[in-house]
């Protein structure tokens, strides 16, 4: 007897738990491999997983096994030239001519690598492991303006639309039982007394007593009848409170200098930095919007393509970009609703007198709205006025302003980690 079952629609990931257990157990190995690969490969590749290899000996499952040595007899197939009694040189020292069965034990162990693939998600988890968005929580509490109503128990007051019928009826029933109980007890006693009285010998009956009891019964029945089925103070209403809702969306402003001094190499480095930040934000927020602002002497909001690839020449006025960002925030992204991040990349050039206005702009307006401002300066040279000005801002907002210098592409990832590493609490 046989039957067929189509299991194809069943869940696929039966091994997901075991896979996670494995990744968890070899966390440190995998992390090391991931870090190496991040440094090696271009950030534009971040969208795919990674092959990771771990030395086999680190993850072997030991069991009692025969070691090399002693006397062994091995039967192999495919004899061509051997005759009984032939002697052969031992191949390559130790070991011996490939053992037939599954004893891979002592031979060449430790040379092997256990290789497997991480999915993109797992890969990014490891990339961003130990990183944290600075002061995410604190800022979220600040962004409490937006609320939504949530059920919060039952109240005695409310509008008819929110009557909780079940609870109201329950109250009413309790009240009815409570109010009727003494009356019913009295009624029962009166009825029993009446019956007892009527059963007495006609000579001994007290007509006045009977009359009295009858009127008492009538009175009690009337009182019981008059207890209302539903009274106003039985009513219960669903209570709603307004609970603040943390905003779960972010905007990332990418600001880049596109003046003549920024070469394509500079821009590529900047792009990688932006990309890392974007991936990172994406993991922390439900929704992340990108705004690209490029500038030379004037700033302009552009799309991604233009941002990275079109070339401009001319001087540099950084404050123009900051002003534009401020305007965009005013117009489209209310700080109560959005978590605002700014990432700026530049080679550090700025017109001399502009740096101070940048400082002013940041200090007076922008920094109050922003979650975090990161500035990377891509230059091997000494710092200029802009760095000095930003340094002052950093001193004023040490928790929300970060800046680092990048010389070449390999520096990006370490710098990024530095900017977002988990800070000790308190």
């Amino acid at each position, binding site marked *: 007897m046989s039957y067929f079952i189509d299991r194809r629609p069943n869940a696929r990931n039966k091994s997901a738990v075991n896979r996670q257990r494995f990744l968890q157990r070899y966390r440190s190995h995998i992390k090391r491999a991931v870090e190496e690969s991040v440094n090696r490969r271009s950030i534009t590749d971040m969208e795919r997983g990674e092959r990771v290899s771990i030395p086999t000996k680190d993850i072997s499952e*030991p*069991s009692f096994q025969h070691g090399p*040595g002693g*006397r062994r007899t091995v*039967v192999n197939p*495919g004899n061509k030239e051997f005759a009984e009694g032939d002697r052969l040189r031992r191949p390559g020292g130790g070991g011996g001519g490939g053992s037939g069965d599954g004893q891979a034990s002592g031979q060449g162990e430790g040379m092997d690598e256990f290789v497997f*693939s991480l999915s993109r998600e797992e890969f990014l988890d490891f990339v961003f492991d130990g990183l944290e968005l600075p002061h995410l929580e604190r800022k979220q509490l600040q962004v409490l303006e937006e609320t939504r109503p949530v059920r919060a128990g039952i109240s005695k007051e409310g509008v008819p639309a929110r009557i909780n019928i079940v609870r109201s009826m329950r109250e009413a029933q309790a009240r009815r039982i409570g109010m009727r109980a003494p009356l019913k007890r009295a009624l029962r006693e009166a009825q029993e007394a009446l019956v007892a009285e009527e059963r007495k010998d006609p000579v001994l009956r007290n007509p006045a007593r009977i009359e009295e009891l009858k009127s008492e019964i009538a009175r009690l029945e009337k009182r019981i009848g008059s207890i209302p089925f539903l009274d106003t103070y039985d009513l219960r209403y669903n209570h709603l409170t307004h609970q603040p809702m943390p905003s779960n969306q972010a905007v990332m402003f990418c600001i880049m200098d596109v003046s003549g001094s920024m070469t394509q190499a500079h821009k590529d480095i900047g792009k990688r930095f932006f990309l890392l930040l974007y991936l990172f934000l994406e993991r922390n927020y439900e929704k992340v919007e990108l705004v690209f602002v490029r500038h030379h002497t004037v700033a302009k909001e552009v799309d991604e393509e233009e941002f990275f690839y079109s070339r401009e020449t001319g001087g540099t006025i950084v404050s123009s970009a900051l002003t534009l960002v401020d305007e965009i925030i005013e117009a489209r992204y209310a700080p109560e609703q959005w978590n605002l991040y700014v990432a700026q990349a530049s080679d550090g050039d700025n017109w001399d007198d502009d740096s101070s206005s940048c400082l002013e702009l940041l200090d007076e307006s922008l920094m109050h709205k922003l979650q975090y401002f990161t500035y990377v300066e891509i230059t091997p040279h000494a710092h200029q006025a802009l760095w000095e000005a930003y340094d002052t801002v950093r001193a004023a907002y040490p928790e929300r302003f970060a800046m680092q210098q990048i010389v070449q592409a390999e520096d990006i990832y370490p710098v990024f980690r530095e900017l977002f590493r988990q800070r000790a609490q308190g």
Partner: protein
Amino acid sequence: MTQRKPIATGSDWTFQTLEAYEHAIAELAKEYRLETYPNQIEVITSEQMMDAYASVGMPVGYHHWSFGKQFLSVEQAYRRGQMGLAYELVINSDPCIAYLMEENSLMMQVLVIAHACYGHNSFFKGNYLFRTWTDASAIVDYLVFARKYIAQCEERHGVEAVEQLLDACHALQNYGVDRYKRPSSISAEEEVRRQEEREAYLQTQVNRLWSTIPVPVSELAQSPLHDHENDPLGLHRHGRYPSEPQENLLYFLEKNAPLLEPWQREIVRIVRKLAQYFYPQRQTQVMNEGWATFWHYTLMNRMYDDGLIDEGTMLEFLQSHTSVVAQPGYDSPYFSGINPYALGFAMFSDIKRICQSPTSEDREWFPDVAGSDWLETLHFAMQNFKDESFIQQFLSPNVIRNLKLFSLVDDDRDDSLQIEAIHDDRGYRRIRDALSVQYALSAREPNIQVWEADIRGDRSLTLRHVQDRRRPLGQSLFPVMRYLHQLWGFPIKLESMEGGEIVRRYQWPIPEPARESA
């Protein structure tokens, strides 16, 4: 036999065609007296097949990182195209569960049905090892029980604690079987019913063993250790514990490890029971695959003869079958040991040949078999042997010649390797002996037994390893001893014996002075 129309042609399959073929194969199987459990044939995707692989074919398994490791390596190999996925996967259960991959062509599906659902299935049902050691009707329930129990332990005691314990048990799982004692069958209902009872009972047993209250003198056996001079109170005259060496390390630990909690004992038991379930499979690889391959070959040919499959399908089948039973020579780049499919298929086919058209050589070597009813003899061979004895009994000179087997001696006292025997008159018997030993579990795994638990002294546990032809233990010894130490809770000693003498001692934890010199 009248020529019939092929049930289907081409490479696409449907459930209707599969059912029709299954039906046809079942009819033929009856003719060949293949007795099977009912078949539960499941069609799955390749991803599901990888899942099934990773859990070593258990349809439900408990969670452990090593299965994740298995999954990752299968996935990697498959993605890179180094490995085709399972030819088939079949589970020794009642009903017998077999997996078909949806990507397979019609021919492959039919082949797998013949191979797994009638070949392996009848082997599971007929072979004495499986009949003795496994209970096909209970295994799935037991796996469910084990998975639930371990999940509960994880909730109660933490994933890490359970994982540590499982690591330690897995290291010893090849030493969780009583080879010479008939096991009690495993039944899930029974397990659940008795589990709590056992927990309490076990604990009292262990407590008694370790209790310091003396046993009444009347129960004490007089032993030569008893020495009135040094031990006037007779504290040491109990003799060795255990009085006989114990081969089942996990069983011994489950019952005797002093410090294990009841739930930990239960997990040791689960690993032991599952090891027992897989014990027959490890000893019948050649026979099992050979039997299944022989039958898919026979059944497919028969269906072709009956006209149930067309020439195209048959050609595709032959191509696939040929690569399955290919045996590359020892010097080929594709060589990875003896192919159990090839050896098993060659042996079963040769038994049939000896029955049907024996040569004078066959009559000399197999007087009982030559000329007997082939089906009868084949069933007898399948039912009553394991790889070791099957080879000893049935490996014919003809098969040795065809595979050009030769045996090679690797002795560390000799600076060269020596060819001990080749496929000639002088060599057949020696090759047969050597190959038989090669498949003997007792020679594949070091012989290690519990020798003494020092329950009145430092509570150390002493194991004895009886060396087989001076072969020492491998590097993995110390990690395993560490796990043993975790389970036992007190020092572990291991003595390697050669010819009745101790040749090497190992200890864990490593004693302080030794560690410095090491």
